[in-house]
């Protein structure tokens, strides 16, 4: 018997197909209102989730998909209420497990656009395992990770992205464990698409969402998001003040990475092999590294994610990485399709399966047996 795996390895769906290419579209024009469910939105006033919801509602019509073929799956937490407020199919599941639900959907339903909405606690603490495996397998799903660096729904405990020393109800003397950097984590987990945006930056967020949706495979989008109740102003340094331009680095594919007023600053290679920030005037324009999101080697993208720690000194947004790799769900369907074709050619039936190879017959007893 020939191993089906051997031939399939070459027949795996090759990249080149877009993230939504198998999802039916509509010619009917859509508006944000079409994606608005009848449920009253119940986040706290000032919550960053409102801004993200508005961006997503505004962006979805652009995709031109049939609304019934979109599914939002969430876990538990403030942001995980998201699906209730969108008039698509949706599931508000259990803490940390949204990627698993999305996996089953993505594998069995290639005609669906599957989104996961999660938070820093949901995705990186209780659901950390599922997140890294969904990324590793490159499931064709888009994950929106709302990072407010705090547990909001349980009323203010520190999260796996809280800065060290964070004083919260559960850490009155300050938190003592080192945080995750979600972008670094995703890159380490073999993610094929990693982006980051700020909740209030509608344009930047929409652009990242647009590319994430178009990407075939797992897309992780980290969204910096404010919790006005338990972690108020945590990203304010990126929103207001004189030095915002010197903190925010927006990646543009194929362009030198410069930022600040008039591109005063640039990202250059450091002596240690990583990246650092320098004045372009000091190092020369040629020394500024050019961003290549499609670079197979994730080293530079990883270095970009490490440019600043939790202090947000140099915060990179945009698309860190966008590379093509076969997805698990396409591969799983290709195997089923190939096996089905072989089975049909052989004339396999349930009856044949149940009979197997070795059978014996028991005849009726003779009527006049002594």
């Amino acid at each position: 018997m020939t191993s089906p795996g051997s031939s399939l390895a070459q027949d795996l769906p090759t990249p080149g197909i877009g993230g939504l290419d198998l999802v039916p579209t509509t010619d009917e024009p859509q508006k944000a209102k079409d994606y608005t469910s009848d449920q009253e939105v119940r986040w706290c006033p000032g919550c960053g989730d409102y801004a993200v919801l508005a961006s997503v509602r505004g962006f979805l019509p652009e995709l031109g998909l049939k609304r019934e073929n979109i599914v939002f799956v969430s876990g538990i937490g403030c942001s995980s209420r998201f699906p209730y407020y969108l008039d698509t199919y949706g599931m508000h599941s259990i803490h940390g497990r949204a990627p698993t639900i999305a996996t089953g959907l993505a594998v069995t339903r290639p005609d669906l656009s599957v989104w996961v909405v999660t938070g820093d606690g949901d995705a990186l603490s209780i659901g950390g395992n599922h997140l890294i495996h969904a990324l590793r397998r490159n499931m064709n799903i888009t994950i929106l990770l709302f990072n407010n660096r705090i547990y909001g729904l349980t009323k203010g405990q520190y999260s796996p992205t809280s800065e060290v020393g964070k004083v919260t109800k559960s850490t009155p003397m300050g938190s003592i464990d080192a945080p995750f950097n979600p972008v670094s984590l995703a890159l380490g987990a073999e993610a094929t698409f990693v982006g980051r945006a700020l909740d209030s930056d509608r344009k930047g967020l929409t652009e990242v969402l647009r590319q994430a949706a178009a990407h075939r495979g797992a897309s992780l989008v980290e969204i910096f998001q404010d919790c006005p109740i338990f972690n108020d102003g945590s990203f304010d340094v990126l929103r207001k003040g004189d030095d915002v331009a010197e903190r925010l680095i927006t990646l543009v594919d194929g362009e030198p990475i410069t930022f600040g007023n008039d591109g005063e600053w640039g990202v250059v290679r450091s002596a240690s092999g990583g990246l650092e920030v320098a004045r372009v005037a000091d190092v020369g324009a040629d020394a500024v590294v050019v961003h290549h999101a499609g670079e197979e080697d994730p080293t530079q993208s990883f270095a970009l994610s490490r440019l600043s720690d939790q202090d947000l000194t140099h915060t990179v947004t945009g698309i860190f990485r966008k590379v093509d790799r076969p997805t698990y769900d396409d591969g799983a369907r290709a195997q089923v399709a190939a096996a089905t074709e072989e089975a049909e050619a052989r004339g396999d039936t349930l009856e044949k399966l149940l009979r197997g190879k070795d059978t014996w017959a028991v005849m009726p007893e003779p009527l006049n047996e002594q």
Partner: protein
Amino acid sequence: MTTDTAVGPSGREVRQTHRVVIRFAGDSGDGMQLTGDRFTSEAAAFGNDLATLPNFPAEIRAPAGTLPGVSSFQLHFADYDILTPGDRPDVLVAMNPAALKANIKDLPHGGILIVNTDEFTKRNLAKVGYDANPLEDDSLAPYTVHQVAMATLTRGALEPTGMSKKDAERAKNMFALGLLSWMYHRGTEGTEQFLREKFAKKPDLAEANILAFRAGWNYGETTESFAVTYEVAPARLAEGTYRQITGNLALAYGVVAAGQQAKLPVFLGTYPITPASDVLHELSKHKGMGVTTFQAEDEIAGIGAALGAAFGGALGVTSTSGPGVALKSETIGLAVALELPLLILDVQRGGPSTGLPTKTEQADLLQAMYGRNGEAPVPIIAPQSPGDCFDAALDAVRMALTYRTPVFLLSDGAIANGSEPWRIPDVDDLPDLSVTFATEPNAPDGSGEFWPYLRDDDTLARPWAIPGTPGLEHRIGGLEKADGRGTISYDPDNHDRMVRLRQAKIAGIEVPDVTVDDPTGDAEVLVIGWGSSYGPIGAACRRVRAAGLSVAQAHLRHLNPLPGNLGDVLRSYRRVVVPEMNLGQLAMLLRATFLVDAHSYTKVAGLPFQAEELAGVLTDAVKGDLPA
């Protein structure tokens, strides 16, 4: 058991016997499971009824020659319908001192012992604490002992192949199989064909094993040491075409069949765990029958993906054992709240915690029944034999699809790995499990909305509206839903109503009445069990009845909901005995549900009940001495 004696063509005595129990025992690396499987196939092909009990350690290769490394395979075959793998072997094949030491206590005096003498070295004897060689003192005097230098003889037979001594000796299990095949008048062609296919890619190994097998057969034929051979005639089973099947194989086939009968793609989300992994292995082979298998990162992801697939309109299945159920519990609760179909296969093993991974137990009943937060009722079905796993899977899927609910199927290690002849069902007779997805808005107020929690009047099931259906976009989740409309609701009365509705839906699932086997009709004692203990309980009843006493037997396939007539049945007997491989979980349910004085008899040794032991318990019960 012996009924007739004749003289065979080789001048040797041939005894006709109704049934035989053979136990092959050796080191984990000796291939005892394969040997037992092979003999089983021959017995099956010959038309005997049979039942098997593989018994092996959790370690893949415990240190060679030690007691923890002993692996055994017990096979009971007969010319009539039998119910168990047998309490004790009639023939014990011991491939080394460890196997002898671990198993000899089970061999009744007068039993046949076939020993591979080559392994009885000083070192091997010392490893298992034999001060003296039992083959040389009189400790084995109560048995009919055949000392055979199997390794040496195998080596000799394989000399022409030029194989190394070490490699040649590895075929000694086939020598043992050949000898036993000769003793019980089994053909050689089936096994030789099997070996050619198994080693198709390594013809040298195939030939070596065949040589060893023939050498064993010829050894019996040519030496004088075996004066008697035995014949066990084919059994008179119900008319039909049969095959041999294990419980895990039957479960996998049941799932494939359920998908076909429901016309739904099957999605198995799972994580490897003993003794359930074979279900994953088997289903992975059947992608051509519409089955997708997903080996997840953990137990939780396995069931999560299965539930996601169910939301999308597939037949979602997850397979596991007790520790995995513990991890899946939160998702099972979610499935209860979502009211989506989901099949949970729990192949139980010894617990708590990691417990006894390769041994059997039926101690997950209360976990399946109650192991979730909140009121989260889940139907439970338990197959009673390996072949019955097929029907149980179909039954479980019927419930899941009809009532939009997760369903537990509780198999266990004994029937998962044990095998028996299985009458192959006619595919045309399998139940139609086709489902109807919701396609239209259903709001009773005529608003044109879709209410995902509007229930069917008969089944109380909610509509299954899958993504991709226009106009039925809806959101579901673990938060309490408003009755009907399905939106989030914190209303106290609504919650009370929803809790009761979910309970009523499960309680209202149609299950057949339990039947009672009471041949004399005057029994005062009822023995009632569930799951894999059907065989030993049935065999025990036969013994008790053969002794002239009356006992009634009932066996529960449906543990939740319980059959509607069960209360009346229980109350109509003076005494009720409930044997279980746990500390009385069903007995507790019966007492709590029906206020009957059910007497629990329990054993949690990691092995199935023995018929003899249960016969004693039942005899005592009939005579008035109830078990403690």
